[in-house]
C-alpha cells in the first residue's frame, strides 16, 4: 500500500508541489516546487529535448528492503527516472541539478560516516552516475536551508535561502 506518496493530480494551476519523501514529474511546462530542504536533498532532472522534468525530495541516502521508496535517495531517483521515461523522456539526454544536503547541527548521533546531509549528497552522485546522468549544476552542503522551484520548460532551478535570497542554477 503506497499511501504516503502523493499522487500528482493533473496540473492545472501550473505549479506542482513536491512534499518531503515525495517526487513529481511535469511534461507540460509546470513549475515543480519543494520547500524546507535542510539535510534533505532535492534532485532536479531535465530532458532538454522534450521539456520533461522531475523533482524529488529525499530524506535519507539508501533504502532498506521494505522502506518507503520516495523517502530515500537511491530509490527515489530510480522511480523518478522511471516516471519520466514513461512520459517520453530519454535517460541519455537527461541532466541533473542538485541542491540541499546541508549540515545544520552537530548531532551526537552522527557517526563516523559524516552527516546525513553529506551522505545524501554522496548517495545522489552515486545514484545518478549509475544511470550515466551528469550533474550540470549544484548548490549543496553548507549549514543553511533551501527551497526549490524547477521550471520544467527550461530546466532552470531556482534556489532560495534565508540569508542569500534566490539564485538560479
Amino acid at each position, binding site marked *: *500500500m503506497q*499511501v*504516503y506518496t*502523493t*499522487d500528482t*493530480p*493533473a*496540473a*492545472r*494551476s501550473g*505549479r*506542482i*508541489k513536491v*512534499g*518531503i*519523501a*515525495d517526487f513529481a514529474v511535469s511534461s507540460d511546462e509546470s513549475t515543480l516546487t519543494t*520547500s*524546507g*530542504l*535542510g*539535510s*534533505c536533498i532535492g534532485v532536479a532532472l531535465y530532458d532538454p529535448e522534450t521539456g520533461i522534468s522531475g523533482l524529488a525530495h529525499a*530524506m*535519507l541516502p539508501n533504502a532498506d528492503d521494505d522502506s*518507503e521508496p520516495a*523517502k530515500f535517495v537511491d530509490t527515489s531517483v530510480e522511480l523518478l527516472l522511471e516516471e519520466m521515461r514513461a512520459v517520453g523522456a530519454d535517460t541519455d539526454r537527461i541532466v541533473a541539478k542538485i541542491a540541499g544536503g*546541508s*549540515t*545544520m*547541527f552537530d*548531532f*551526537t*548521533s552522527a557517526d563516523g560516516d559524516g552527516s*546525513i*546531509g553529506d551522505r545524501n549528497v554522496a548517495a545522489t552522485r552515486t545514484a545518478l552516475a549509475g544511470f550515466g546522468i551528469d550533474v550540470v549544476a549544484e548548490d549543496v552542503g553548507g549549514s*543553511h*536551508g*533551501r*527551497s526549490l522551484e524547477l521550471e520544467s520548460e527550461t530546466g532552470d532551478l531556482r534556489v*532560495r*535561502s*534565508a*540569508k542569500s535570497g534566490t539564485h538560479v542554477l
Partner: protein
Amino acid sequence: MNLDVRSLRTFSRLAHSGAEKAAGSLTTLAGIDTYVNVTKVELGTKSDVESEFAERDLVSVHIGFSGGLDGHTVLAFSPESAERLVDALMPGIDATDAEGELAESSLKEVANIMLGGFIDGWADYLDTTVDITTPTYVDDENDGPLDHIEAEGFENGGDDEHVLVFRNQLEAADNAIEFDLYMVPTASSIGTIVEASGDDGALPVESFAAFSEMINDGANQASEDITAMTGIDTTVEVSRLSFVPIEGVPMSLTDAVRRGVVLEFSGTPSGYIAILFDEPSAENIASSLLPGMEGDEAMRQSAIQEIGNITTSGFLDGWANALETTIDISPPKHVHDIGSAIIDPLATDLAQSQEYAFLIDSTIRTDDDEFTCDIYALPDETELRKALKQLSPAA
C-alpha cells in the same frame, strides 16, 4: 480504551488516504489542484480544539457519520480561504452575496463531497458501511464551534476530556486556499479500529492523556518563565501531542524565516527541541533583554539563546519530575533560517530509526499577537513509549 503505536499507524494511514481521496474529489470537482500537506493524529481536549477554532476565526462545515463507525467530521477554513474557494468554484459570483448564503451552500457542497470521500476510505478499510448526515454550516459567531458534536464525539461532554482528533492540513491553488479536515470518532469507534489493527503492547489512553497534561504544564511553565524574564505578558495558546509520519514533521511548518534555538535533550526520553520565533518576536526579545542598547548581532544571538535555554528548562523540568528521571539539555544552537528547513534535520535524524514521530508542539503568545513563540519537541519514539509506560495508571 487502549492505544498502541501500531493502531496509531493504522489511524494515520487511514486518515491520510482518506484525505487524499477528499483532495482528489476537490481537484475533480473544482479543477483546483489540492494537496494533503500533513496528517496528524492528535490527542486533545475539546477546549484545545475550540480555542484553535476561535483563535483562527475558522468557519466550518460539520457532517456526522454513523453505522460501522460513529462520530463527526469537520471541514474548517479561514474566512479568506472560504471566500477564495467559493470564487474558484463559481468565478465572478460575489461570495458574500445574499447575506453569505451562497458561500454557505457551496461550502456545504464541497464538504459533502470531500468528507464523503474521506469517510468512504475508512469504511472500506473496516469493510463496513457508514452513513453520513447532511452538512451543517457553523460560523465563528457561534459560541462553541463543537457544541453540537458534544453528545457523540466527547462522550462525557467534559471540556477537559481527551479525544483522538484526526487533523489533515490541505492546500489548494498555490497555497491560496488552506483548510483542515478534522475527524472525531466516538470512543467505541476508536476501539473498533484498534481491534481491527491488533493491539500488542497497547497503553491505556490515560497515559497518553497524562503525558499530554504534562506537556501543557511544561508549556505553562515556559510561558511564565518567558514573562518573568522579558516582562512580555505571554500565555499558552495551544499545546498538542500528535502522531505524525516522520516526513510530515517539517511539513507542518511553512517556509517563512524563523529565528530561535535548537537543542538536544537526553534521558528518558531523549530527542530534539526547537524554540522558534518569527522575526518581529525575535526582535522584541532582543530589545527587552537588552533594554536601551543597540545590540549587535552577537548580542542578539546570545539573547535568543538565553531565552531558548530558559524556555527549554521551563518546558522540560516538569517532565523529569513526572517521569522520575533526569533529562539533560545540550547548549542551545542559534538558528535563523527557513522554518521547515530548521526542523528537517531533526526529523531526518529520527527517520533513520522510526517511520512515525510523536510531535509535541506548543504556541506561547501575547494577546495582541505581537509576540509568538513555537516550541517543537521530537522525542525518540521507543524512549517515549517507555516514558508513557511510566505514566500508566498501573505502573
